[in-house]
């Protein structure tokens, strides 16, 4: 290992200090209250979006003739029941749906798959 030149040492020190400053900020804030609620709500939101998409997909399969009406009814009922459960849970968390913050980024949605109702 060749010996370090002074300019290298300087660069090392400056960078180390910069990084240390940035990562220490949260540490100085002290321990946050563990907002498990936030996470739970976000997870429920994501599950809700996914459930909605499944309901839409099933409806689309019905319209395209891939799923028979009886099969669809059975699946649809099950999915709606699961969705209602999720909504119950969200209600329990005291979430107001109309003023929800941005929904989970991983679950795109749209209006009815083949058109409005």
């Amino acid at each position, binding site marked *: 290992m060749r010996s370090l*030149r002074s*300019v*290298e040492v300087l*660069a*090392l020190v400056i*960078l*180390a200090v910069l*990084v240390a400053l*940035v*990562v*220490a*900020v*949260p*540490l100085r*804030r*002290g*321990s*946050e209250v*563990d907002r*498990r609620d*936030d*996470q739970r709500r*976000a*997870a429920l939101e*994501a599950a*809700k*979006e*996914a459930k*909605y998409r*499944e309901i839409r*997909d*099933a409806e*689309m399969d019905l319209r*395209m*003739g*891939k*799923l*028979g009406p009886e*099969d669809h009814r059975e*699946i649809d009922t099950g999915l*709606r029941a699961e969705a*209602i459960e999720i*909504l119950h849970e969200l209600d329990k968390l005291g979430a107001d*749906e*109309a003023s*929800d913050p*941005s*929904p*989970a980024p*991983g*679950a*795109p*949605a*749209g*209006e*009815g*798959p*083949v*058109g*409005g109702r």
Partner: protein
Amino acid sequence: MAALGSACLIIGLMTALYAAGASLYGARSGRRQFVVSGRRAIYCLAGLLVVAMVVLETAFLRSDFSFALVAQGSSTDTPTFYKASAMWATQQGSLMLWVFLLSILSSAALFVTRHRHRDIAPYAAAVLAAVGAFFLFLMIAYENPFATLSPVPPEGAGLNPLLRHPAMMIHPPLLYTGYVGFSIPFAFAIGALITRRTDADWIRSTRRFALLAWTFLGTGILLGALWSYAELGWGGYWAWDPVENASLMPWLTGTAFLHSIMVQEKRGMLKLWNVSLIIATFVLALLGTFLVRSGILDSIHAFGASTLGTPFLIFIVVVIGGSTALVLSRRRELRSEARLDSLLSREAFFLLNNLVLVAICAVIFWGTFFPLISEAVTGTESSVGPPFFNAVTTPLAIALVLLAGIGPVLAWRRVTPAGLRRAALFPAAATLATLVALLAFTRARDSVPALVMFCLVAFVLAVVGQEFWRGTAARRIATGESRPRALGQLVLRNRRRYGGFLAHAGIALLFLGVAASSAFIDQRDVRLSPGGARGGDANTATYRGGTASLGGDDAGTGAAISLGAVLDVRKGEQRFVLRPSRNYYRTADPSKGPIGRFFEGEATSEVDLRWGLRRDLWTAIQPDVATLTKAVQRLDRDPRIANAGPAQQLRAIAALAEIYRRDPPPAQFRALVSPLVVWIWVGGAVVLMGALIALWPAPEARMRRVSSLHGARLGRELSGA
């Protein structure tokens, strides 16, 4: 400046280690401030690596030869465009690129999930930081991109002319984005396993990263194939070389992963399969990155053992061992929530498709590592070549295309027999019609696999077309929109589904091109004298004259001299001209004479290619420079030339070029007629379009509106129930 770069790497390594440690500590102790601090450390790492990249790129662009890497991979006469990409043509530069992309994507992934996955994200951060730390360690300890040279050399060795092509500029970044992209879902999977939260949650957030990675990796692979076809002197697009295979394998398992996670999201099945698949994909991505550097396999890309072989092997063993142990210990949480209802369901066919894809990956793996296997089993090292690979992958590829056609037709859980009949009628008719037409009007029957593939391609295209048609029709019934608007809205509101269908169509087109160009290629090697002609099936090519040009070759790659031919091609009524040539680059080798140096350096084939929707005509030339040898030798021995400056030498070269042009010698030509090969690239573009549609996020406003719409509806049912 190199000092700054080195410092960035060293501090980066420490930052990465801190990020891993802080995230782990914060997760285990519940002290969230350490988790946040660890995440910020990863943002810092990204910042440091941006600085390091800027330093390195600037050195290349300025031809700063105090950087050993610049002296090794670039030169003052490398065109600027290629100076920028020369960095990742080197070992050290490509490691730098890898960890740079890793830090950027990790920062993005952790930022996007900072409010969700509070259990999983810290472990994912730790995994990503650890991988980054490994790459940084490799660079600092073994292959430092910021090594300096003293004294500073006046000139660099230059970029290998074969790499001077736009596709080669973006090929490595695309591939690496793919490899790195797959490490995100891997890291979250590990986090999910550690915290035992093995439901579909970890999938939902990382699905986009997996799709992004898949898209980039696939595009990178296809660009590499295109470059090989259009640039290299052999006219093929895939040689089953170990390095090519190493990039294809993670793409195959990645494709399987993209399908099987849908099953887990919908039905809670295949949990064990999914984590295993993403672990395998990540391991294969590491293999893809390192195979060329490890010296394990003989490849045209590898050259003996390199220093990175051992550390890499250790790392892979640790990753495989650790992941396997983790998966085994979480067996219970990975049990399926549901069972397969029926074989006629999307779940069943997705599973089948997965099995086929994994089988293809397995046979390619077997063939690629066969030298090691045969050495272990029989004691002598033998290898298998393209005939083996083509033979074993063809039936699997046919199965894959068949499944790609059936999949879109099915629904989740089960499909009624009536529904199936309704859906299969048009595609079956289309397939049959194609079969009849092919048998009657073409010589497709000469190759049964190709014939089968053509019919299946028709099948897939018919299925996809039918899906778009029926979907549009159903929407028009509901909304009364015009056809184009209905189609647009349909796709916009069902991006994943229709993007996926489009990708299937693209894959079918790609296999159309592959099947046709593999089975029906017409290759001829001829030696022609000026004025000579040779005819093929439909074309006659006449060697009209020679071409010779100095400096400034068309591609701008900095060749000193280009020698070639003008070929007059007549095809029925059509006439066109092809100009294949060969570029000669100067070598710095002092043992060659001053003029001889121009002809003894690297030489590349500049192919001339005429694209066509139905067939491509590809030509390459091997000029006979032996006729110039005597003149070259005379010039080399002439003392006036040795003492002359570069301008004089160029004049001598110009004189030689003129001799060649005026009296061109006979030359060796290779001509390939490849049917339908352009559909490979077209198909790839369609797949890319489909993937981009599927990737595109829905605008937030619409999402909120829809959520409340649905919520209101369900609420009504709640109160009504």
